[in-house]
């Protein structure tokens, strides 16, 4: 599903964000990526989204070799991925429903599919009753659930989450993690970058630890392993 082979990403100024990383995440897996700031986590996400290209090595996501992807193929490739950000990135002038529907509209889904699918995912994250409400009137946890609904509305094979609980209190974080787990159970591969030690420790999922651009630990049922 996601396969990195000897991936190195160096920038023009000489900074090496990822160095010789080899990694394989299977379909349906749930994996945490942990590590201190500057370890290369954000770069990893940018590479997976083909926002940036590897300097050397190979990345295959959903069967596509990202280095061989033509610029005009990138949007279609991205439709097989979903992303959730730490800061939610909802559009304040659109209500919950439209924030989610927006993701389907831009891939030119039919009006009927949009209606059905948006209701379905809002129901899944427990926000169907608040469909007409605007993001500003929602709690942080609710906003993040809308963002999750938006990320999965196009049925991506892989869901990438960039510190999704970073702005949430512990209880809300747990609720959010339960939603991710439920999504994972439907067969969606989840890759979650996080600093949330209690969550990593209790979820008992695969943990990939990065430091200085290298994989220093990769355990199938791991713990956070840092004190930060």
């Amino acid at each position: 599903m996601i396969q990195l082979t000897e991936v190195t990403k160096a920038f023009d100024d000489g900074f090496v964000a990822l160095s010789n990383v080899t990694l394989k995440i299977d379909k349906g897996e749930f994996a945490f990526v942990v590590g201190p700031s500057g370890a290369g986590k954000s770069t990893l996400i940018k590479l997976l989204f083909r926002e940036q290209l590897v300097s050397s090595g190979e990345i295959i996501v959903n069967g596509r070799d990202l280095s061989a992807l033509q610029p005009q193929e990138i949007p279609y490739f991205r439709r097989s991925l979903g992303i959730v950000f730490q800061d939610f990135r909802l559009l304040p002038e659109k209500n919950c429903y439209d924030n989610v529907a927006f993701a389907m509209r831009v891939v030119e889904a039919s009006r009927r599919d949009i209606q059905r699918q948006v209701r379905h995912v809002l129901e899944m994250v427990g926000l169907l009753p608040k469909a007409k409400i605007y993001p500003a009137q929602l709690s942080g946890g609710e906003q993040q659930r809308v963002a999750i609904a938006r990320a999965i509305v196009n049925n991506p094979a892989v869901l990438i989450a960039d510190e999704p609980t970073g702005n949430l209190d512990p209880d809300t974080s747990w609720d959010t993690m339960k939603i991710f787990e439920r999504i994972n159970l439907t067969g969606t591969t989840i890759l979650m970058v996080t600093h949330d030690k209690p969550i990593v420790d209790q979820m008992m999922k695969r943990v990939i630890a990065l430091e200085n651009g290298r994989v220093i630990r990769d355990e199938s049922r791991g713990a956070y392993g840092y004190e930060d």
Partner: protein
Amino acid sequence: MKISTAEYFVTESLNSIRRNGLMSMASLMTVALSLLILGVFMILVMNLNHMASILESQVQVTVYLQDTLKETEVLEMGTRITRLPGVTRVNFVSKEEALNRFKIRLGEQQGLLSELGEANPLPNSFEVKVDRPDRVKPLALAIAQLKGVEAARYGQEVVDQLFGLTRMVRIFGVVLIIFLGLAALFIIVNTIRLTVFARRREIGIMKYVGATDWFIRWPFIIEGILLGGLGAFIAVVLLTQFYSMLTRQVYESLAFLPLLPKYPLMGYVNSFLIFAGCGIGVLGSMISVKKFLKV
């Protein structure tokens, strides 16, 4: 493209025009003004060209004869000119007839001529009709060489001056149009950049969920077309009014001035202006949105 998608694009672009009311108004007016000036120059150049070609097509050489010529010599000269290649008709205008024509042209100011007394300063002349415009010049030169000919005049001198004027107007117009076009483009770029900037987060999310660049561009392009096209429309309306008034005035008081009729001239000018307005709009929006597509 699906109808619902097209609907979405149009709604989005109308929304951003409304949100940026003042700036949109400013770019609309700049486009209108620039295109109006462009239109005025087009009309001017086309009319000057038209006048020049009318003059150019007048195939006549006027041959002035020396007063020393005897009557038989004048007759002989007439036959010689008639035999020249390209000459279709030769018409003799005597000194007296020339003076009469001159009097008629002076109209009420004929009194001026009384100063002359009995003397008639005008020469005998021939009006020589030529079959083709391009033969006028060599023929005039040939006739001028004949013994007893004072001078041979034709319309070309005026035509040359007119073409010179047209060329200058055209150069000046092109320079002005380039500047005005750039100004219009610049302000459209800035107006649309404001909307693009206001929606950069949205564009970022669109890129992440897999919207194509064209899908992201379309609403901005429509916005550009609306601004440029509406600006052009304003210019077209004003310009058409202006030309109607101008032609009416000229026909009433300066009837000899051969202005081009309103149609088809305004048809060409107007469709060109609309096309240019929309073109500036599209170009402007493409430039504004370019930077924000790199995600």
